[in-house]
């Protein structure tokens, strides 16, 4: 620890930090631009100047850049000294020379770090009278707006995009006052983390383009703490609404998960909430097969009638909340409840859980992923299925650079120094996947194989570790690296739908354990709440549920498009048979139109509930705004049906009650709702609610005047600790699960988050939220290990002509809900297949032409890729509304009528 004095007051900090970070950690105000808590210091902007004194006698001191100064024990500095303040004011005056006076029309206005810092330094009169330099802006695609005139040359954008996220197509051009930050030419920013530029840029150069198209000032947004529904990581977000439209998502700091960054599927994938595909009204299918909309009572009566059938099946969903799944399970009974996973996903996901639980392996947080020193990715294209994990793996490969810096006496926060010293030295990352991935550029070695090939490689690695001797250099180098590692990490997932891949990965972990290396093991699930469905109950398989429906059973289908999860013919048989169906969903689907009753379900932004992520961390997301039209949370619909059926055991009045029952019903898990997040009775200082609206929220009396001049009564919230008004508080020391937005006096931008942290980049003052349902074992239980069979059974694939299909996942488009978000739909590709050049030649298919198969729905664009094994075909899943791929070889034929979908040709249009 080091004790240092700022303006006569003593503070204690961890030695080895830089002075700026140390000062901010005391919650003091010191302006800065180029420093970023996750990216360190480069000393580019000169804004954080302070006066440093030699000793107590020194009255003059000297100017020093806080971000470039190591904190020393006994150091005496002044932030408030007149000379330091003058210097900082002149720095901002230079920075502002070329900055336009366009704050009133700038999307950053009101949450602009440059505005905040300008006010903080006291620069209020412009003396500069010359012309400002101006730039032509670029079209950077559907996500990011570009306004270069506002740039103050802090370099944060390229430091994040290139150095942190590994993007290649955003650069810094020119020199001196002619710096330009953008692409070589107009075009879509390729990185799936580009959206973070919106938050990283301290002013309005890079802005949220979809948000700009229906813009609202930050202070006019109504926000609540939320959880991203995009994948199994469950990144924390601030979700913000106005006029009944979910306007945008921002990153919400979680110390163990996303910290400062989220991916673009999360950030831009939320607009499905506002899409034209939303189901907004209850509907009953009349005898003529046409839906009659809008009579909620009639729909409920009809649903009750359907559920009075002697045989009722309930199909849940891995994208619905814990509460909705539980309510359905209660309603139909465990023996009639299907978790809603496809049969192949069910097998592989159960296996994943079984490995983690029985194997007792340590499941790493995202922060722990970043700390790994050797990473082996087996059978999961993690950049596409759980992008935030891939970003963390990228950071893990930098750990050696910090070790090198330490031994060279370079401070670890000295970003340029650390990177320059390490050059291309990286921690070992090995990737074994079916297709090339966006981590390959930093991998020590990669190998591409089908799932059985990957299984074989993984079992050989396990064998090599246990003392066998293999020829394959990939196998031997991975084994060697793992044995030499201190914090080895194995990353795999369920997307290949092959339990053998998981078994073989577990065999590696097991072999390492035998060598007294305890590896961390991360298994990515396929959807936001997949792991909740696993811990819930066994349940019916999807195909047995479908068979029962086909045989005449009634069914309740919860937020699930069954066509994505089972072969079309079996779903057709079920939905077109005698069994009557009540379907609840957020967006329209092929399944929904075949139901007898449709009930519009609330999206995650319109309800409070719980998702369980890949580490079995149960996290609460809160209602951001009340749903309009007939929309209600799914659990409430089910509750209403249950109460009309006289079933008091399956009806509740508040979400907290359902959550408590759901948690209590989890087998072998002891978790109370209070441990997850504050409940409805939580009050700040025992009396104040948390305000969803900022204290200067405007237009409350006028915003709906086009409908009625009478100001509506603010909704009463009896389900959450929040209020639907500006009455309430957001002090920053409440639980991290219930921070609605980040703001403190003087800090309007997202940079204010440091005031919510115990120290810069430390945990939140009120601690990050959620609870891991399964505790991490401190020591592996030797007994349970023996119960578990890690052996790999060789798959029996029927020999047949044709190509072996394997799934390809796309960050934009493969996920069902985000694909219905209009910005993401513009980025998503049309359905495509990856094939080897030899196979393309046999088919006489050229790149860009179309192919189809009897076993697949629709036509696919041909992408030729020599990473794909000859004799196999990678099928992009989800893009044609199907996720499950055939389990046998398929024959492709050229489709002469194929027309490729152009990028930017959105299938879905924004509501506003």
């Amino acid at each position, binding site marked *: 620890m080091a004790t240092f004095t700022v303006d006569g007051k003593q503070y204690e900090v961890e030695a080895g930090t830089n002075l700026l970070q140390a000062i901010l950690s005391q919650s003091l105000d010191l302006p800065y631009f180029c420093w970023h808590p996750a990216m360190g210091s480069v000393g580019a902007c000169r804004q954080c100047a302070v006066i440093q004194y030699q000793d107590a006698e020194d009255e003059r001191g000297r100017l020093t850049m806080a971000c470039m100064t190591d904190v020393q024990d006994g150091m005496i500095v002044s932030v408030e000294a007149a000379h330091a303040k003058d210097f900082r004011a002149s720095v901002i005056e230079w920075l502002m020379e070329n900055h336009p006076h366009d704050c009133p029309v700038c999307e950053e206005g009101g949450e602009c770090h440059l505005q905040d810092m300008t006010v903080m330094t006291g620069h209020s009169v412009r003396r500069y009278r010359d012309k400002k330099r101006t730039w032509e802006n670029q079209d950077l695609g559907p996500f990011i707006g570009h306004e270069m005139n506002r740039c103050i040359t802090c370099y944060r954008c390229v430091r994040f995009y290139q150095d942190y996220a590994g993007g290649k*197509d955003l650069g810094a051009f*020119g*020199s001196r006052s002619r710096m330009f930050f953008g692409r070589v030419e107009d075009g879509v920013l390729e990185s799936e983390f580009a959206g973070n530029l919106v938050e990283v840029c301290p002013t309005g150069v890079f802005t949220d383009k979809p948000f700009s198209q229906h813009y609202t000032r930050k202070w006019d947004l109504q926000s609540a703490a939320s959880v991203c529904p995009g994948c199994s990581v469950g990144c924390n977000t601030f979700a913000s609404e106005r006029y009944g439209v979910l306007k945008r998502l921002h990153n919400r700091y979680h110390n163990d998960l996303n910290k400062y960054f989220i991916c673009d599927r999360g950030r831009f994938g939320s607009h499905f909430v506002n899409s034209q595909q939303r189901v907004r009204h209850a509907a009953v299918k009349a005898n003529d097969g046409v839906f009659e909309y809008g009579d909620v009572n009639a729909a409920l009566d009809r649903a009750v009638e359907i559920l009075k059938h002697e045989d009722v099946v309930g199909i849940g969903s891995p994208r619905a909340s814990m509460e909705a799944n539980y309510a359905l399970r209660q309603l139909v009974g465990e023996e009639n409840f299907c978790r809603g996973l496809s049969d192949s996903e069910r097998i592989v996901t159960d296996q994943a859980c079984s490995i983690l639980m029985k194997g007792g392996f340590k499941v790493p947080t995202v922060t722990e992923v970043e700390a790994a020193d050797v990473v082996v990715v087996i059978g999961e294209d993690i950049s596409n299925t759980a992008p935030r994990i891939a970003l963390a793996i990228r950071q893990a490969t930098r750990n050696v650079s910090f070790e090198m810096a330490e031994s060279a006496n370079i401070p670890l926060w000295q970003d340029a120094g650390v990177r320059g010293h390490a050059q291309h030295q990286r921690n070992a990352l090995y990737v074994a996947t079916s297709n090339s991935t966006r981590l390959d550029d930093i991998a020590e070695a990669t190998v591409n194989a089908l799932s059985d090939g990957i299984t074989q490689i993984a079992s050989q690695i396990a064998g090599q570790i246990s003392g066998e001797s293999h020829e394959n250099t990939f196998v031997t180098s991975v084994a060697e690296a793992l044995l030499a590692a201190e914090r080895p990490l194995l990353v795999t997932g369920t997307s290949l739908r092959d339990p053998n891949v998981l078994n073989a990965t577990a065999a590696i972990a097991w072999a390492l354990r035998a060598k007294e290396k305890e590896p961390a093991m991360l298994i990515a699930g396929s959807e936001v709440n997949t792991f909740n469905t696993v811990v819930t109950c066994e349940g019916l398989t999807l195909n047995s549920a479908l068979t029962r429906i086909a045989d005449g059973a009634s069914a309740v289908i919860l937020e699930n498009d069954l066509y994505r999860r089972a072969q079309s013919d079996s779903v057709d048989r079920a939905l077109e048979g005698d069994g009557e169906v009540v379907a609840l969903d957020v967006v329209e689907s092929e399944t929904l139109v075949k139901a007898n009753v449709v009930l519009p379900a609330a999206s995650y932004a319109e309800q409070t509930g719980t998702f369980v992520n890949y580490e079995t961390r149960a996290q609460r997301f809160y209602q951001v705004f009340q749903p309009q039209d007939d929309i209600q949370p799914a659990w409430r619909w089910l509750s209403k049906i249950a109460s009309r059926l006289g079933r008091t055991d399956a009806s509740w009045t508040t979400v907290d009650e359902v959550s408590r029952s759901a948690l209590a019903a989890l087998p072998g898990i002891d978790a109370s709702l209070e441990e997850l997040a504050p409940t409805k009775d939580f009050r700040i200082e025992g009396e104040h609610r948390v305000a969803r609206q900022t204290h200067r929220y405007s237009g409350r009396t006028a915003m709906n005047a086009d409908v009625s001049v009478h100001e509506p009564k603010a909704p009463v919230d009896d389900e959450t600790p929040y209020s639907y008004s500006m009455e309430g508080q957001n002090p920053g020391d409440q639980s991290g699960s219930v921070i609605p937005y980040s703001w403190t006096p003087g800090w309007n931008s997202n940079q204010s988050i440091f005031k919510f942290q115990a120290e810069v980049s430390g945990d939140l003052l009120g601690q990050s939220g959620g609870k891991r349902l399964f505790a991490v074992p401190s020591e592996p239980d030797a007994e349970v290990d023996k119960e578990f069979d890690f052996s790999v059974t060789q798959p029996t694939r029927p020999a047949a002509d044709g190509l072996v299909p394997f799934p390809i996942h796309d960050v934009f488009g493969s996920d069902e809900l985000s694909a219905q978000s209009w910005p993401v739909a513009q980025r998503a590709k049309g359905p495509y297949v990856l094939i080897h050049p030899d196979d393309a030649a046999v088919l006489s298919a050229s790149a860009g032409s179309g192919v189809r198969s009897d076993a697949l729905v629709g036509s696919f664009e041909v992408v030729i890729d020599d990473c794909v094994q000859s004799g196999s075909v990678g099928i992009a899943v989800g893009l044609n509304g199907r996720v499950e791929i055939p389990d046998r070889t398929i024959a492709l034929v050229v489709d002469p009528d194929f027309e490729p979908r152009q990028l930017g040709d959105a299938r879905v249009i924004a509501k506003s």
Partner: protein
Amino acid sequence: MSEVELIPMLSQEEVAEIEAEISHLPDRESAAIDALMIVQKHRGWVSDESLSAIANLLGMSSAELDGVATFYNLIYRQPVGRHVISMCDSVSCYVMGADGLAKDLETKLGIRFGETTADDRFTLLPIVCLGACDKAPTMQIDEDLIENVSVEKLDEIFEKYT
């Protein structure tokens, strides 16, 4: 795929010279500046197509290489004339009348700074100190340093550069 096809944008001679530079260096991208200079030597300037081809050869992205190329004022990213006149605009030359000389130069060539004459003979650019303050005003034409420049001497100076 398309990037691979861009390598033919460089001549065999250029590729050989660049590879020779790379052979002295720890990694390919360290040859960035040399590679840009080699291509400029052969072609007079570095076009977008040449830039992509060099980037591809060095295993860098175009954005990374263009960041290097545009940082240096002597790497030309637009076509220049057969000869480039770099006129010093720093303090010593200014004191010795470079200001007026610059205007005379513009009149004589019929172009402004940053432009190229219609016959492609000269491109006129400003430059910071050439390190010959004792013989100010100075200019550089191609590789030649020219000292004690005056408007009267211009014809004689230009004679050599056809």
